[in-house]
């Protein structure tokens, strides 16, 4: 399996505080990975660096077969290269309908002029309907996203990510605020997505991570503490120390 994303020796500090400290991380083309770690371990900063929101002080972020550096690209260029991101708080366009939200995300030419000339084809309508069914919003297409419940917004955002059809999906705490049934459905969607692309899930909830049943990376103080199956890392003495206190 070839490497899709390689983060090598990345460090970043904010006002002297090292949020990420010589972090190295790799993920393959079709892989599901969970990242866990205590608060302040650098999980969100890691996502910020990969998506171009934060520039690291040193290190490399290489992407795809050609190993292009993501550090020179803007956020929107990185997104177009195939990195999709779901934020911790659900961020959807609240003043727009579920359908418009999905249409915005649907993989199309993003330049202003082609968007201006864009006309929705019957194929697009179909794709949106399929996606909406998958995320359980099939009968809510005309509703404003702002009216949806918290869990529905989380799903709409996941749906938007799938519509983007990225090669790498970065998902920040997807299960927050979801009921048990909703969590199970979310797990299924993520596992399904990971069959054709790389999915990185940041999560606090160990039960949820266990259900994902995948390789786990533990972050602590901005670097990798342990990596392996969930059972393997939870038996690691360092991890126990960090999580349960010394």
């Amino acid at each position, binding site marked *: 399996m070839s490497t899709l994303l390689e983060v090598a020796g990345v460090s970043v500090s904010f006002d002297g505080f090292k949020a990420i400290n010589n972090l190295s991380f790799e993920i393959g083309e079709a892989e599901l990975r969970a990242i866990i770690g205590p608060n302040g371990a650098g999980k969100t900063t890691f996502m910020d660096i990969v998506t171009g*929101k934060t520039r690291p002080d040193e290190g490399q972020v290489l992407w795809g077969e050609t190993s292009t550096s993501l550090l020179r690209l803007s*956020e929107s260029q990185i*997104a177009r290269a195939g990195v999709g991101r779901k934020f911790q708080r659900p*961020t959807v366009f609240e003043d727009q309908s579920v359908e418009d939200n999905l249409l915005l995300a649907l993989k199309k030419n993003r330049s*202003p002029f082609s968007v201006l000339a864009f006309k929705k084809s019957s194929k697009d309508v179909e794709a949106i309907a399929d996606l909406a069914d998958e995320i359980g919003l099939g009968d809510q297409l005309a509703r404003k996203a702002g009216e949806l419940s918290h869990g529905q917004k989380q799903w709409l955002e996941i749906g938007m990510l799938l519509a983007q059809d990225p090669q790498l999906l970065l998902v920040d705490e997807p299960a927050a605020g979801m009921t048990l049934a909703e969590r199970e459905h979310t797990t299924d969607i993520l596992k399904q997505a990971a069959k054709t692309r790389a999915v990185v899930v940041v999560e606090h909830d160990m039960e949820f991570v266990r259900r994902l049943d995948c390789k786990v990376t533990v972050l602590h103080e901005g670097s990798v503490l342990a990596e392996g199956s969930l059972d393997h890392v939870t038996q690691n003495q360092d991890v126990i120390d960090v999580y349960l206190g010394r």
Partner: protein
Amino acid sequence: MERTFLVRNPSVMVFIALLAVFTIAVTFLSEGLGTGFVSTAMVKTLGMTLCFCLIAIAMDLVWGYCGILSLGHFAFFGLGGYMIGMWLMYARTEDIVVASLAGAELPPTDSEIVDAIATQIFGVVGSDEFPWVWAFADSLLIQLILVVAVPGLLALVFGWLAFRSRVTGVYLSILTQAMTLALALYLFQNDSGLRGNNGLSGLQNIPGMADTPQAVLSVWFLWASAVALAIGYMFAAWVVSGKFGSVIRGIRDDEARVRFLGYPVEGYKLFVFTITAVMAGIAGALYYPQAGIINPAEVAPIASIYLAVWVAIGGRGRLYGAVIGAAFVSLLSTWFTGGRVPNVDLGFYTIEWVSWWQVALGVSFVLVTLFAPKGIGGLVDLFINRKTPDRHGADLGPDTGSLREKEADA
């Protein structure tokens, strides 16, 4: 496609019908072509109001839909006016000069005519030759192109610099104020080439139409302004109704999210900023021949602030709101500052509306912003049964320009 566009935007049909009725009615009541019930000065005022409505639509696009509070769009309006004004003044002076030299014993050479025109136009600023900016003033076609090109290019360069540095919110507003102030100060200089604080005058005299009375010309300009407004309204409605509108409303409410979807946000902002600057330039080019005079005070920072006030009072984020606001406030302003409103005698103090009108406008702006964010356009909601969402006071996005709860529709 055309049908679905109109079906999705019922306001376009209603708007164009009302505009047509208005324009035809004024024509029949005008001095030039009708009963004379409406004076020529009033026809000109109405025509100029339509130009204000056009720039208000541009402002609504850039602020109400894209969330960029530009306080500099009157710079583009003024530039459009200056560009057409140069041709009007040149061609008209040429007519006069040629007529006066016709009596000379030797027929004047071309360079003598040009020199005489220059002396006529620039004598007032102590110069007798054409500055480089007047290079194409003798060509109507080129000046018409410049009406679009000069505001467009200025907006393109300014917007490119501002947006790529990620200047947003109040800082961008200040920057646009600085831009229009800098332009005004530059134009105030006598050696700016545009006659300093004298500005360009006599623009109501259309070259080659000396025999057409102003009463008739004013109706023509009313029609031209109405057509431009109708086209501007349709264009804006088309831009905001499709996926493009979806993207720019997304930028207004949550810019970062749009970026992470892969849209080049800066490109979109630049596009909207530039296209609205062009609309403003066209509005200005139609306005100043009706006003008759343009001077640097027209692009003073306050003008652009008024524009924002119009759109806010009319109702941001809906095109007809911008039109209503611009028409209502500017006509009211004309009425109040015209000196025909009776003063209010309080015994100890007399309220003179000519000066107190601005205070009243300021207060109403604050009141509308606080208590009726939907503006006058919100009254339409009473008829079409549009409701606002109940979000317990939460805005519709994290950005400063995002739609407020009471502006949104449920």
